């Protein structure tokens, strides 16, 4: 979008929205500037701390230009405080859902079955108690290692997934979709491997007993025998019986070549199990997604910022990250329904999540989750 410099010369600040940032040039009144249309928090000047940015990473104090940015947007921006959001978050308009429905998942419980969590993470630790955690992996599989709920994975996979679903967003950025939800952390893997599929079922069972509404499993296994699949399916059916709980499971990741396969637990046949694929931010199925007829719902899965091993957001790609995002959105919906109706139905919510999702013009009736539409339908 274009903005025009007002009646005073305007400094171009290089690199950051700061009055101390280097300025190598200033613009005469009437000069046009092409900016990216986003608002940036910066140094306050004359009581206004909103800045604009161009494609070359130059910043312009918004008070020095004429622009067409709606006042509501400016107010919302100022209300959002200093927190940084990321493209996947913006694309889903989660912020709109929060503000329009005053819902941040407070009445929902989300279980993350993964590699544990990083206890040093300030956006997770305050909301997780030892009673809400459980380790399912067996010491005999990891001789010499102490098995705790602490996330020891090289990538901090469990921490990433947990933060996407329910980080409280106390830090300078927004990661968690349902920041007020209760988190349950089940450790079914030490390092991203899954030595025993039973850990998943044990984790689901534990989560349900802990009153989880939503379970997020960013794991998939492809080499199960038919007998094993049948056995696990039966166990799952038993565990899930008469429980209103939604399980979100990764459809699986392809390599450079996108593959078609049915991975588990995403492919279990159950009304309350949702296979989640990864979508791109421009509304396509991400190539990383393993294609499966069992996978209808997709959520952003390319370059998703979440907490990395160093405790700051960094992007990663995979259906692993689509899954807790979808689970977090479900948690918002569950909490909203509980608040609104006092109860909720897993099957109904699953149906609405799919029916309100945006259809992708691809074979197989694939869809991309749409939280705004979902909340309209609740």
């Amino acid at each position, binding site marked *: 979008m274009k903005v025009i410099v007002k009646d005073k010369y305007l400094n171009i600040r290089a690199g950051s929205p700061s009055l101390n940032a280097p300025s190598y040039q200033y613009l005469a009144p009437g000069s046009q500037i092409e900016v990216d249309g986003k608002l940036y928090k910066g140094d306050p000047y004359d009581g206004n701390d909103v800045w604009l940015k161009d494609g070359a990473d130059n910043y312009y104090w918004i008070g020095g230009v004429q622009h067409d940015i709606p006042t509501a947007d400016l107010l919302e921006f100022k209300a959002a405080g200093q927190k940084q959001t990321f493209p996947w978050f913006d694309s889903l308009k989660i912020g709109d859902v929060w503000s329009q429905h005053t819902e941040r998942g407070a009445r929902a419980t989300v279980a993350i079955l*993964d*590699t544990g969590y990083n206890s040093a993470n300030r956006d997770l630790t305050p909301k997780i108690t030892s009673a809400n955690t459980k380790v399912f992996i067996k010491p005999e599989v*990891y001789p010499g*290692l102490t098995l705790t709920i602490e996330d*020891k*994975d*090289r*990538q901090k*996979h469990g921490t*990433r997934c947990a933060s996407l679903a329910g980080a409280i967003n106390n830090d300078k950025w927004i990661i968690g979709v349902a920041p007020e939800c209760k988190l349950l952390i089940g450790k079914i*893997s*030490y*390092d*991203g*491997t*899954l030595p025993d599929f039973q850990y998943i079922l044990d984790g689901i069972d534990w989560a349900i007993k802990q009153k989880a509404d939503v379970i997020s499993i*960013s*794991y*998939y*296994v*492809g*080499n199960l025998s038919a007998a094993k699949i049948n056995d696990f399916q039966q166990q799952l059916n038993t565990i899930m019986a008469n429980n209103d709980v939604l399980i979100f499971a*990764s*459809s*699986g*990741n*392809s*390599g*450079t*070549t996108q*593959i078609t396969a049915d991975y588990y637990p995403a492919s279990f046949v159950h009304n309350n199990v949702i296979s989640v694929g990864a979508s791109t931010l421009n509304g396509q199925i991400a190539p*990383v997604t*393993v294609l499966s007829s069992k996978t209808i719902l997709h959520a952003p899965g390319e370059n998703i910022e979440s907490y990395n091993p160093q405790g700051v957001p960094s992007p*990663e*790609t*995979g*259906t*692993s*990250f689509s*899954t807790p995002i979808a689970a977090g959105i479900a948690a918002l919906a569950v909490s909203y329904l509980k608040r609104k109706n006092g109860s909720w139905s897993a099957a109904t919510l699953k149906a609405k999540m799919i029916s309100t999702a945006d259809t992708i013009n691809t074979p197989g009736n694939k869809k991309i989750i749409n939280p705004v539409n979902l909340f309209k339908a609740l």
Partner: protein
Amino acid sequence: MKKYLLTLIILILSIESYAQKGIFYQASYFRSLYQEDTKKITIDNQALDAVKNLYAAATIEGLVDSLNKNPFTVNMFAVQAAGGNNSFSFSSAIGGLDVTNLANGLSDFLIKRAKQELTLAFFNRFKKFSEENPEFKILFPKTTANLSNLLDYAYPQMLPALRTGFLEDLKNVTYKLDDVLNLPRYNELLKNLPEIKVCLRSIKLVHQLESGLANPAEVLREFSLFPEWHDPSATVAVKNIGSTLGVATLLSESIKADITSHADSIWVPAKELRRLLDDEVFLKIYVGLVYRKAQMEKIEFFAAPDKSRLFSDILLAQKDNLLTLRSGLSDLFDLTSGVNALVSDIITKKRTNAVLTNDDYYNYINTSIDFIGKANAIVKNYVSLPLDEDYFDIAKKSNEIYKDVYTRKYAQLFSDALDVFDHISNTIDKRPEYQDLMTKASITDYKGKEKNTVRNIADVKAEYTPVKESVIDTILSETATNANLKLAVANYRLKQLVNFFKELKPYGLFMADMVGAEKPEEVQAALENAVLPVGSSSVKKNTNSNLSVQAYLGAYLSNKNNSFSSWTSKFGVIAPIGISYTPGFLSWKSAGSLSFFGSLIDLGAIVDYKLKKDSTISSNGSVNTNTVSKDYKIKLGQIFSPGAFVVYGFFGNLPLSLGVGGQYGPGLSKINVDNTTVLNNPSWRWSVFLAVDIPFFNLHNKMKSK
């Protein structure tokens, strides 16, 4: 011929962007997935693509199973069940660079100005040589054509054309080698000596590198694919050098740079490679994948024709001790920075529109060859097997030829071109079946008509002696019953070829000198050098019979004692010119020679004049700074000085001679300080002289066997 080099380097880099990355990156990828506490590498479907050139697994479970069976990475791998992305992008792109403005640095070599007097006799000899040797016609087609027309033109007018022909022929001489060896007479040579083909291919490869048809990594691959390495008649040493190249190629390709991050490099930067060497896990994964690749390529080393060992097995034997390999890799990797820096420099220069120098290309090529040699050194340290490494020298020498051309050192160019053949000859001489050919029963007991010739041509150490083609034909007709005769003929043909190049040398150097000469006096010097080059005083010390036109310049001690005249002084300058004859039995190689010298004229007094003119002493003892400049005419009668000497040519190839003899005359005598000349009557003088040996040209010469 270099102007397309950069274009093609960039083209190759672009092509590489579509190719799979090397083992370094694959190992690096796996290393990044290594979890320190579990000591496991967790991989997902990304890995299927990442190493599909090494493992054709359909599922990730199958791949993990295969990787866990690799002896270097036993049980290191596990299936990643988490849906996080183990990102490893193969995608890449490269911007096109404009390379249309490269100048052809070699196009302006030809000089326009050339005036000289040429000696008809020399050119006639040259012409005769070109006509008698089909090899010459092939190697120097333009020169041959020019020489054949020589009598139709006056030499001065012909000179520019000759020089152009010389230049064109010299530039292309190594390209023509193939054609020389396709002469029917060399059939046996090619059949029995695959090394010859290898050498020729080596030279061609360097040309490819020079003209930008390949980068060092690709040259290495091409080198390793020579069919001659697997020729049934190839020796174990030759096969092993082929296998060594296979290993070197494997290693080279294992560290190919990712052009998305290192667009200006061919290999992964040394700094990153250092990371591999310093990380035990990384190194183990890397060697494991190299091992896998070696298994697939089945590179075989031979201890004997029927005893071989796979490189992968040799590698496997080092499974628990990677120190030796690590050390070798370290040396190899150190070299990559040199090549990378040069390539980067070339590309940077292009980007900034700086002029590329031939040195850029030369250094690029030379460092590349060094890399090949270094890779060879690794294997050599690693396996103790017979190897033949002369090919690298040949490749390097060919690059020198390139440098000689662009630095306009044409004489050196010719010497280097001849060196290539020396290398070929040396390579062949090392073959064991040739070493002991003459002691084989089929040769020693040979009773055929040409038995003496057969024994002679079967001796690899014997000097070349021409044999009539009809005799060779007779010997060849009997090869069906005596296979060693083929080897003997091949040996003869090789010697014949080398002899051709020896005989060619003076003409070749003359051509080179002529092309390199830019001033008339340089052209004159080239001609004089060709007539009898410096250092040819040693000819008479290595001859079976030598007759030459000859001069000496030195000091004499005579039986006279009249200081008034230089001729009659006790000491003085002597400069006789005449005919010298050295018989074989008086030619003692490094011990010197004894010649009979008949002088016709003596320029002693003139030389005396020349030598003294800057230091004439006045009668009052002061130095006379005025040089003598009197117009002084010499008549034949004043220098005619017939005489005879016995001359000893000094040992150790010193160009000094000690002569004893007598001569008559001359009438010419001394020039005084006051520029007055003093004539003296001719008379006989007996003297001993110590002089520099200056042969002018050989009238007849037959070289002695070495």
